[in-house]
């Protein structure tokens, strides 16, 4: 099983995951540990959990990473009051920014069940950049720290 990579001396933490939904438990613990170390507000922690877990689940479910071992790497660090994330996976090319927004006004019968995850990520993370490089998907995300009493963001 892949092990977390702690980068001493800097504020960056990283974890390598297998492409397996069972890895979500370790991912959750990793995000918790980072947020605890950086003393992030509860609302920011929640947004990070939702966004990161949605992206990782997408990579696991649809990426067809081969081999699955060590296929996903997440790095997190603090910079300029933001949480900066780099998420890399060896799956098939997938740019979440290319996914059209779901029609949330359609009747429940007509609504697509999929697509909500990417929609949530885009709602919660204002700055997302994608590139395909070295046969990997690279996502660069920046999440401003949201105070718990800041109601401008959910």
């Amino acid at each position, binding site marked *: 099983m892949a092990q977390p990579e702690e980068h001493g001396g800097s504020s960056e933490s990283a974890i390598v995951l297998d492409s397996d939904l069972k890895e*979500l*438990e370790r991912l959750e613990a990793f995000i918790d540990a980072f947020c605890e170390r950086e003393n992030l507000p509860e609302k920011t922690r929640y947004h990070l959990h939702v966004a990161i877990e*949605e992206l990782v689940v997408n990579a696991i479910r649809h990426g067809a990473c081969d081999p699955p071992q060590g296929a996903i790497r997440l790095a997190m660090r603090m910079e300029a009051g933001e949480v900066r994330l780099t998420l890399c996976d060896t799956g098939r090319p997938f740019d979440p920014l290319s996914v059209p927004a779901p029609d949330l006004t359609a009747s429940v019968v007509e609504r697509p069940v*999929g697509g*909500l*995850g990417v929609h*949530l990520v885009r709602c919660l993370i204002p700055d997302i950049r994608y590139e395909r490089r070295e046969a990997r998907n690279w996502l660069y995300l920046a999440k401003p720290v949201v105070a718990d*009493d800041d*109601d401008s963001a959910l």
Partner: protein
Amino acid sequence: MSLAIEQREREGIVILDLKGRITAGEEATLLREKLRELAAGGMQKCIVNLQGVDYIDSTGLGTLVVCFTSLRKQGGKLKLLNLNRRNIELLVLTKLTTVFEIFNDEQDAVNSFFPGREIKRFDILSFVKEQASG
């Protein structure tokens, strides 16, 4: 990471008390299978009590929608009870508050199945105002 489901009945309505997370993997599958099994047994009225659910992801939301539509196709209804603030926010972001009937009080949720009984529904506008006023 797990989901526990306890089933009880009140005035002929099945109430599922959920505890844990409704997320991609075993948790969402467990809920879908439970509701499928109940619907196959003829259940038509169901309240899903989310008081003990601290986290729902998009797969969990999708599972609730699939269960809602499946039950509705056979003439049944599925309503939600006791969502926490975070879970309500996810429903707002995905506009699922326009799909589900949501209640904060179990008696109100039960009463909603009986025409003529007084009920108080979850008021999303009040919720947003409460958030804005801190």
